[in-house]
């Protein structure tokens, strides 16, 4: 049972991961993966860094992100990502959907709580 809960939770997180990544990138002019990872880790949305790179590549291939190489003082040059026009439009759409979802989910929670109270009394 616990395993099942963990699985569902992971799926929920994963579903919103791209939304969060887009939002993080939107909050900066340019950002490089390690910074994105740091933010995601703060919010416990991501466990390992390896998850991020395929997502970034996919978003980039969809034309939602663009990047440019920037020399790094230490280590290899870094890819700095930024949102494209299409990315911004997509993000607005997703954020709208997200708000609708929150509302819908909250509605279901309210209803279930009300039912609980009713049955208790």
């Amino acid at each position, binding site marked *: 049972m616990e395993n099942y809960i*963990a*699985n569902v939770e*992971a*799926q929920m*997180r*994963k579903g919103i991961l791209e939304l969060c990544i887009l939002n993080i990138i939107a909050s900066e002019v340019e950002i490089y*993966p*390690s910074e994105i990872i740091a933010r995601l880790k703060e919010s416990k949305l991501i*466990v*390992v*860094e*390896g*998850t991020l*790179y*395929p*997502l*970034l*590549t*996919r978003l*980039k*291939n*969809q034309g939602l992100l663009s990047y440019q190489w920037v020399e*790094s003082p*230490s*280590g*290899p*040059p*870094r*890819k700095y990502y930024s949102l494209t026009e299409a990315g911004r439009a*997509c993000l607005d*759409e997703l954020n709208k959907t997200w708000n609708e979802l929150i509302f819908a989910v909250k509605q279901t929670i309210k209803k279930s709580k009300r039912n609980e109270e009713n049955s208790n009394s």
Partner: protein
Amino acid sequence: MKKTVTVNIGRIVFHIDEDAFELLHKYLETIKAHFHTSEGKEEITSDIEARIAELFSEKLKNGKQVISIEDVQEAIAIMGKPEEFGGDETNGSDKSKGENFKYSDKQYGYSYGYTYGDKSENFHYTGTFTKRRVYRNPDDKVLGGVCSGISAYLDIDPLWLRLLFAVLFFGFGSGLLLYIILWIILPPAKTTAEKLEMKGEKVNVENIEKNIHEEMGNLKNKFEDFKKEAKDFGSKDRRDNVRGAVGSFVHAIAQAILAVVSVFVRLFGVLFVVIGIVIFIVLMRLLLGAIGWFPMGHSNFAVLFFDTRTQVLWSSIGITLLIGIPLLMLMYKGFRLIFNIKTRNRPLNVIAASIWIVGVVICSVLFFDKLDNYNERNISRIDANIAQPARDILYVDVDRKDRDEWNENFHIEVGDFGDFSDENNLVTFHDAKLKIVKSNDTIFHLTKVQSARGRTLKEAETYSHSINSEIKQKDSLLIIPDYYSLEEKTKFQFQHLNFILKVPVGKTIFLAQKTKHVLDDIDNVEDMSDHKMVNHKWLMTDKGLKCMDCKEL
């Protein structure tokens, strides 16, 4: 003690313990396997490699030089195992479960999935071992460590290179020059990393060949992929994949071409250096004459043109700069090509260009100053008194000054034009020509036509008289020299000598075999060409020379 290997991760070179390397290699392979079916798999893996390189770079900040297995484990923990990438599901335990995560969002036209690649397939690990780089080796040096650095690069015993440079040193110092150029352009191997890099993968023909083979192998794989993708071509998603496959196919071709090109670039580099050395030796051979190391040199020639010792010296400097600077830059460029040095050296280019311009200025000043010396031309006709032959026939022969005898002395032959001998500093030309015309009176005449140039007509006349030639005569045999020399300490003023033999009507000449070298378009009634006229008797008639014993007529 541990064995380390050198690897190139995300285009940065690391030294890594062998066990750590094994682990990292395995990890990167599983990553590759994981993304094997994903679109943009190369980009994802190279991004991950770059991040690992970054993590390693941070590890090496505190003077640490080698990546240990702990560092690799730490990096793997940060990056995560492929199983963790998609969330909590485990690899391949439930394929259909994997499919469940594959969801597509039609609204935005993109799809993604978390299916895993089949690990049993072969994967090509393309993380390359580091290429060697040339450094100067400060640990094993005689002068600057150039030889031992290069021999580490070429994987040969430094002794041979040192010997080569020592031998070349006696090639008019070209060894020293080469050494100095290399000393300037090669950086010293200071850190352990650089020292290891210096001894990295061998750069020899086999390895270049191996590289090309690898590129070709890559190309083949790409092509196979391409074929496979093309077979599945159909759905929209697939079309995107095909585009990716075509892209990587083209990329692979480009890489193969680059590998071939790099071989040629190196060959060009070698060619540049060899040409540079050869011209340098020739140049030195000519110029060092000015200091007297060599019996024949620029100064010997220069005194023919210039009035003062100072001018000779300036001309030496001018020519050295004019030819030497491009030569140095050619060799420099060659070494850069051979050792694949990309850094630009702007100041060096600017300095070289400036010095070269100085050379151009010196040479132009001298040239235009001298140009005045050749303003006017004088032609003097001097009658050489010849004895009239007892009978009515004159035998004409040519003295070509036997070349075998000449070769015993040091001399430089300038084609058919002339000879320069160190003996008495005499300049001898052997381009004298002979014309045969009708005499106005009843006797034979031989005229020397001597010409020269000078600043003024009077000077030109003086120079035209400074030509020495020796005409010999024995009874009816007239021997004309095809050579003439300038009087000692006379400058070269385009002196030239021709002979005109005037034959009276009714008299005969015989042209000996050797005259064919000097005959200059002789008019004759048979309309015969010069080289056919020899070994025949010719009678001067009112109409011109007539052959007396030509059989074919």
